[in-house]
């Protein structure tokens, strides 16, 4: 039974649409949903594994350079094959889940909410209009799913589709 949910919005708000994750976290935090912990950071790092282990489910909220519009919502399972990356200063969600499992015995379910962005290659603390629309759609989708703790059911139902439309 999912009771404690961790949401982590990550990205750089100074790099245009890369700030979608932290923006999502800021909006969720303002809602103060019961049983939902909200965190934000520039990127996922190893100590997030300890936080994952203290929750029943975790939602990784990031900007997506490519992929479905306005967003996708999918399960993520521990996968240490992603350990061979260009950097472990930052981690991918599947690798972080593997670390949480191996180091802290975490059994949390994992989900990725990837919000499609469009502008990444400059400095600027703003989201483009299309990214802002996608963010609104993602928030509209996620809030009732969090409230009702329907994360797994919704992700499984959406796995056959490229994207989950707003509900």
């Amino acid at each position: 039974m999912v009771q404690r949910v961790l949401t982590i919005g990550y990205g750089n708000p100074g790099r245009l649409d890369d700030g979608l994750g932290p923006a999502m976290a800021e909006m969720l935090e303002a809602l103060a949903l019961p049983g939902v912990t909200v965190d934000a950071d520039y990127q996922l790092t190893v100590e997030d594994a300890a936080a994952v282990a203290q929750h029943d489910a975790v939602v990784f909220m990031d900007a997506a350079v490519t992929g479905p519009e306005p967003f996708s919502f999918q399960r993520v399972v521990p996968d240490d094959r992603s350990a061979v990356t260009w950097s472990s200063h930052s981690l991918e969600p599947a690798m972080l889940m593997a670390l949480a499992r191996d180091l802290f015995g975490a059994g949390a379910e994992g989900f990725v909410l990837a919000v499609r962005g469009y502008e990444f290659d400059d400095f600027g603390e703003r989201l483009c209009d299309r990214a802002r629309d996608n963010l609104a759609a993602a928030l509209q989708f996620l809030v009732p799913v969090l409230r009702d703790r329907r994360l797994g059911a919704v992700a499984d139902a959406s796995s056959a589709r490229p994207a989950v439309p707003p509900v």
Partner: protein
Amino acid sequence: MEATNGYKRVSIDAVTRVEGHGKVTILLDEENRVRQARLHIIEFRGFERFVQGRPYWEVPVLVQRLCGICPVSHHLAAAKAMDRIVGGEDLTPPAEKLRRLMHYGQMLQSHALHFFHLCSPDLLFGFDADPAVRNIVGVARAHPELAKQGVLLRKYGQEIIRATAGKKVHGTGAIPGGVNRNLSLEERDAFLTEIDQISAWATAALQLARDYTLAHLDSLAEFGSFDSNHLSLVRADGAMDLYDGGLRAIDASGAILFDHLDNQRYLEQIAEDVRSWSYMKFPFIRDLGPEIGWYRVGPLARVNACDFIDTPEAEAARADFKATFGGPSNVTMAYHWARMIELLHAVEKIRALLHDPDLQGTDLVVSGQRRHETVGILEAPRGTLIHHYRVDDDDCVTMANLIVSTTNNNEAMNRAVQKVAEDHISGQPEVTEALLNHVEVAIRAYDPCLSCATHALGRMPLAVQLIGPTGEVLAQGTR
């Protein structure tokens, strides 16, 4: 990748386990001898323009957008600079100590991440080990307690940052002329309950780094090594000081090149060279020129340059380090040992500060004579970090120049790449993944942070290409 004059070019398109974009190119001739090896770093100079026109008080927050790994270093360097803009460089004791606590927290978490999770796979499994094992999850499986200690050391540092700076993405603790919060007794007590465990882990990490270095010194001594100058801040009495002090440069033998240079006058001694093939500049000591005036920064340089460390356990470790090498160490792989000396120093400093009642002080901000130009320098985890600004009468930034730690190490990292390529790749019939990892090991010793925190899903694959004499791709891989 182009073939040049019949040479082959080996390219590592994004160095693994460093931050941001990096690319190594190794140019081979027909006999697979290394003709040229370079580290290319994609640096976003546009950030300095981004800051221009913004009010000075926003800058300590804005500069954190430079880097998702060391935002606190940029936050504090900018705050130190803006202290002078408001005439508030003589901070109150609570303000300075709270900033130092934040800085030592940053040093702790950054050094812990590097040692336990970035370099330990190379040290524990060997440079030639299967990359499927030689990674952070491999460490977690084979050495779970060590991996867990690394996570919890870093978490402790991050919690100190959160308590002193605020939110991770919007840290606001340091403001021009001081800080905007103190440390509550409840927060202090929570940190104190864990400090003994943190100290024990830091001591063990130092022992591990020392023992590894000594056990492998014969092979490590030459690995990517060369004589160099070293640059760092030192306190007025010559002690290591990671937050403040004057600039000291020494040569490879330890002779002082300049000493106690006022931060505001750094341009009298530091200049930057530009090369057509690199986005990143090459700093050097002006009097010596770019050919021989380049230097190293970071843990190795700091441990070499200081006269002593003002915490007992780290000082004993420094004396041991110095006795081992008979003076300054120019061994690239000794960065790891030096880094763990600093890790322990940071823990000792944190412990002392937590017992200081000034952290609960309420006199947090000062101001004085307004200025229009300013320099803030501190020792970031990766080395000397310089922020230089001009601010107009409307309080807006008109000029910003940042020399980040990785830029200060640019020449040294290129020399390390060249040395390892010549020693380990030259003449080999096949350039294997293990051989390429040797190059990465040398780069990782410097813990470079490549000023790029964009990491959105779907970006930055690792591609390795081997290009033949006529330009054809002989081999390539992505990870």
